[in-house]
């Protein structure tokens, strides 16, 4: 990574949105490819993700870095399209029906966006039919579901059943998470992956889309 892209990555890690915009614009002007600029930003977010996992940075730093990333993406989005750079993948995300908690789900969204994934956020209290409609409309690689309550985590199974009944199960990978959820539960309801935290969810999603 050259010096300019390194500065871009560092500014992103510090959450300095205006600097990220300026460096991204300068990089475009100097002829850097959209892919290289994107990779520099993803490197920055990846470093933030690791620090978050290690408790070296906290939720707000992730939020601020993700917002800075969005500023940079605004600069390069048209170039990514022109240069035929595809997103790392698409995720449909939501907190399941009956559950109005959104903090964990929002963190997952931010970390996923910060990892170059396109996220369609359906919000909270999302019924199975809304997940189905979003799959049919957006053709995601992954459906990710969150639940904070033991009483609502069972609704994840209903969503998976609805996806299967609709004949869409082989088109998407399914991820689940939330305080009461664990790997055994994920297995028992037929999900592909359980992620214990937001940073892991983002890397898990990329691994599911492009196994290393």
């Amino acid at each position, binding site marked *: 990574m050259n010096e300019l892209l390194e500065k871009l990555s560092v500014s992103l890690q510090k*959450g300095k949105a205006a600097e990220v915009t300026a460096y991204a614009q300068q990089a475009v002007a100097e002829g850097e490819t959209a892919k290289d600029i994107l990779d520099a930003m993803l490197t920055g977010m990846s470093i933030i993700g690791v620090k978050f996992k290690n*408790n070296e*940075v*906290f*939720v*707000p*730093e992730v*939020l*601020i870095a993700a*917002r800075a990333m969005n500023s940079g993406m605004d600069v390069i989005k048209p170039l990514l399209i022109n240069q035929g750079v595809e997103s790392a993948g698409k995720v449909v995300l939501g907190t399941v029906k009956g559950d*109005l*908690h*959104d*903090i964990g789900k*929002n963190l997952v969204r931010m970390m996923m966006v910060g990892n170059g994934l396109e996220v369609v956020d359906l919000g909270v209290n999302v019924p199975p039919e809304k997940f189905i409609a979003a799959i049919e409309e957006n053709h995601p690689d992954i459906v990710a579901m969150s639940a904070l*309550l*033991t*009483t609502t985590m069972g609704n994840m199974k209903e969503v998976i059943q609805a996806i299967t009944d609709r004949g869409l199960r082989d088109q998407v990978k399914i991820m689940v998470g939330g*305080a*009461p959820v664990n790997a055994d539960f994920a297995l028992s309801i037929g999900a592909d992956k359980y992620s214990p*935290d937001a940073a892991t969810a983002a890397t898990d999603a990329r691994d599911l889309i492009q196994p290393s």
Partner: protein
Amino acid sequence: MNGYEIILKNVTFADPDRIGLRFTYLGEGDVFRIYPQKPVYLRDGSEKINMATKWKVNDGTDEWGVEWQKGHSLGYPITDLEESFEKFVVPDPRAPGRFEGIDEVLSRPEAQGKWIQLNSPYCLFERLHEIRGFENTLIDIYTEPEKIEILLDKLIDFQIGMVEEAALHGKGRIHCFDTTDDWGTQQSLMINPEIWRELFKPRYKKLIDVIHSHGMYLRFHTDGNIETIMDDFIELGVDIINIHQPRLFDIKSFGEKYAGKICFEVAVDIQETLPSGDKVRIEEEVKELTEYWATPHGGMIGCEYRYLEDIGAKHEDLVFAFECFKKYSDLTKRRA
């Protein structure tokens, strides 16, 4: 020893006979909680005023301008840090009616010798993210700390007002001020502990000093993993810390670090143990908690978690948890 003496001696490490118990939902225990009521200026005449029951808007807009749906905040009044920030007005803690009926409500628990605790939740951080939105709050704390400090000063003054009202209307009969701020995620603090120390700790200190100056104790509820600021809570003079997820910590080493320095009000873990319904696990956890978090001289209150449906636990599990806390409650043998 009556309930008041049991709790007081646990809080002050003055050799109580047993650990304290708070299982109000089951009609058991040493503690009686009272709640501020809807002030007169908001009433429409249909209200039943009773300080034994919590007044909270579950659907609609509350007096802070926060919109609620099924008990979850969905809309916040401070939508920007310009116009709506300038216009925002904190409710008056001294508005008439909040302590209406205090004499009636206290007569029975006083006769029973209970420890009386006033619940005034959403101390600083929780109120802040209700009035400003959660993500905005987290970002503002880092990017607009001066404006956040202005809000925090107003919020702590509200709570100080509630303490002073409690002292005025309670006339010494309210033993404990009880407030809340969830600070932890599953793994860590929500924000950098240094920023917590800079922005929040001094305001807590101001509140706690006023509580103590009126002869009351502070019980502070906080969810999540808050180990990085446990020493700060102790330094601030928090008397009782309420923890619902003891399994977020290594119970033994956590107890070895902090038992005897603060009184724990602790429930059987509401994420893992209680919802499991596994009686062996529940009893083992209670045994472990009383062994490591209580000292022979006090420092522990076993407590309930009442929103059983939310966590997928059964009434019978809570009853069993209570029985376990009773079984392992004796402290006199540990001093022998």
